[in-house]
């Protein structure tokens, strides 16, 4: 077990190094002259040269990469010339808000998807199951922003229950308390995730229901509620562990679009504006951060699955 976990961490580190190299190289190719983006299109040759010299862009690519990596290991994501601020401090202002939106949605999605999947599996092929399956299928095919627009139309414009804009407060506690503004963004991200999760949960619960230990539990006269609660729930939820780990890139993408739609001042919106202004280091840093979270998500999913399920062979 320990050997497996160590090996798994080892490959993750290799992948992380590969990711940093690829993203750094790609941005280098796409934006070969950050000097022009910063100084403007009318910048003169000597000005560009001195800017490059000052910020180390005159050095060979590998030296630049290594010095960036060195900064990264010391928690330095570079400097945003657009915001005239360190990217680290730029992120520090905003990451809690994004984490709240994404984390809350993920937790709610899991809480909703598990009972929903079990309900559908138990009532397989009934009207309720078919209706929910169809609903999940439609939501699954829906772009995040369209779902958000529909929710805005229904709950903010037709019935004025919630606000169509997310909370603009700078204080996290205020944002969390402001359910009037935060319900719709969280609901949008939650429903999109539920559509994906509940399908897996349903098929996993159907698989588990066919197992002998469920038959045994029923045969010994355990009430159906306890059969589901004690025997089915844990076993059927296992695949969801992997799914949550793998869903991080989709969660981040959904987060970006939701933040843009509801004008929520998180990392996704920062990334969106950085695209417009070619904020080189912010783009680089957030893409890297997303990749790191993805690798970490996969790693945690794999490890927690092997811990949770001793039957999994560590090949």
């Amino acid at each position: 077990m320990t050997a497996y976990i160590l090996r798994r961490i080892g490959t993750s580190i290799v992948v992380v190094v590969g990711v940093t190299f690829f993203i750094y190289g790609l941005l280098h190719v796409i934006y070969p002259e950050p000097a022009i983006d910063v100084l403007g299109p009318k910048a003169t040759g000597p000005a560009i040269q001195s800017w490059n010299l000052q910020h180390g862009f005159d050095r060979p690519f590998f030296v630049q990469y290594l010095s960036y990596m060195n900064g990264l290991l010391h928690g330095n994501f570079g400097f945003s010339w657009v915001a005239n601020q360190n990217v680290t401090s730029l992120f520090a202002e905003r990451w809690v808000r994004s984490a709240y939106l994404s984390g809350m949605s993920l937790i709610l999605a899991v809480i909703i998807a598990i009972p929903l999947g079990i309900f559908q599996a138990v009532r397989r092929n009934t009207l309720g199951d078919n209706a929910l399956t169809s609903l999940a299928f439609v939501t699954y095919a829906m772009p995040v922003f369209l779902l958000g627009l529909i929710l805005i139309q229904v709950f903010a414009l037709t019935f004025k229950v919630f606000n169509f804009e997310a909370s603009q407060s700078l204080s996290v506690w205020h944002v969390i308390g402001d359910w009037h503004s935060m319900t719709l963004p969280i609901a949008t991200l939650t429903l999109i995730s539920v559509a994906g999760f509940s399908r897996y949960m349903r098929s996993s619960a159907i698989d588990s229901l066919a197992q002998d230990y469920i038959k045994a539990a029923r045969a010994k006269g355990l009430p159906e509620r306890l059969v589901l609660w004690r025997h089915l729930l844990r076993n059927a939820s296992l695949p969801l562990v992997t799914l949550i780990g793998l869903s991080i890139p989709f969660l981040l993408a959904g987060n970006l679009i939701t933040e843009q739609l509801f004008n929520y001042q998180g990392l996704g919106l920062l990334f969106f504006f950085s695209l417009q202004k070619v904020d080189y280091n912010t783009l680089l840093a957030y893409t890297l951060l997303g990749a790191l979270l993805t690798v970490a998500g996969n790693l945690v999913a794999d490890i927690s699955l092997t811990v949770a399920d001793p039957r999994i062979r560590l090949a």
Partner: protein
Amino acid sequence: MAQVTTSLTELDISRPAEGGEVGPLQSGWRLALREFAQNKLAVIGLTILAFFVLFCFAGPLVYHGAVLSTNLGSSDLSPGTGHPFGTDDVGFDELALLMWGGRAALEVGFFAAIIGIGIGALWGAVSGLVGGFADAFMMRVVDVFLSIPFLFIVLVVAVKYGASVLGLSLIIGGFTWLVPARLVRGEVLSLRTRDFVAAARAAGSTPWRLIRKHLLPNALGVMIVNVTFNVADAILAVAALGYLGYGLHYPTQDWGDMLSSGIQDLQNGYWWLVYPVGACIVLVVMAANLVGDALRDALDVRLRRR
């Protein structure tokens, strides 16, 4: 004891078993086609796709609405005579926009999926066939690409190069070959130990011929299923890029572009600028997913759902 003997004699080999009508020998593809045609949802999905192909590619030949010249005098008209789906904020005809936007979405979806499967199949086949260190390296490369959030990296590249259908297809295709690469590699790993591959090797096939003539044709089922899902994903990706404003450039439009001011449109009560486009995206993506599910059931026996 006597019973047993009678039941044994009844098992006459010359008489076919009941219910076991065996028709003329059928190829796997024909069986798959039959299974596919029996799947009602698949037929519905295929019909929807066929409708949208007609709507987007033949539609503009029949229906001529303004999509190039602005006319502020007739902006934001609600659906009515002359403009069955209304007009948008610069006076473009919404129905004609739906056709042209769908054309771009379908084109990018199709090309991106083809590019993705092309790279992925080759990468996976070579990786699985060569094995050893090269395989490990090539699969780590896939791991690296898969770790980068798709939308982020596509956005970063599309800001610079995503203005045209070809550019956007290349970008999206360039980041969707990873799953097909893994799938095809898995197929090749099991295929390469089979006797027909050994026979082809013994007959002097080069690795390239082996991949082209023996491995890829046998992995075709997996590839076709994956292409269908990738079309759906690519259409969603284009819509997301267009919505964020980093998709195709005018005059080429995509359904996503048409929704980029969706929230203002809703606040103004211009529902016709949001819901028809939204319905088109959902229908096409759902249809592609339905066809993909059915193809998987028909072609890929191991993944068959219960």
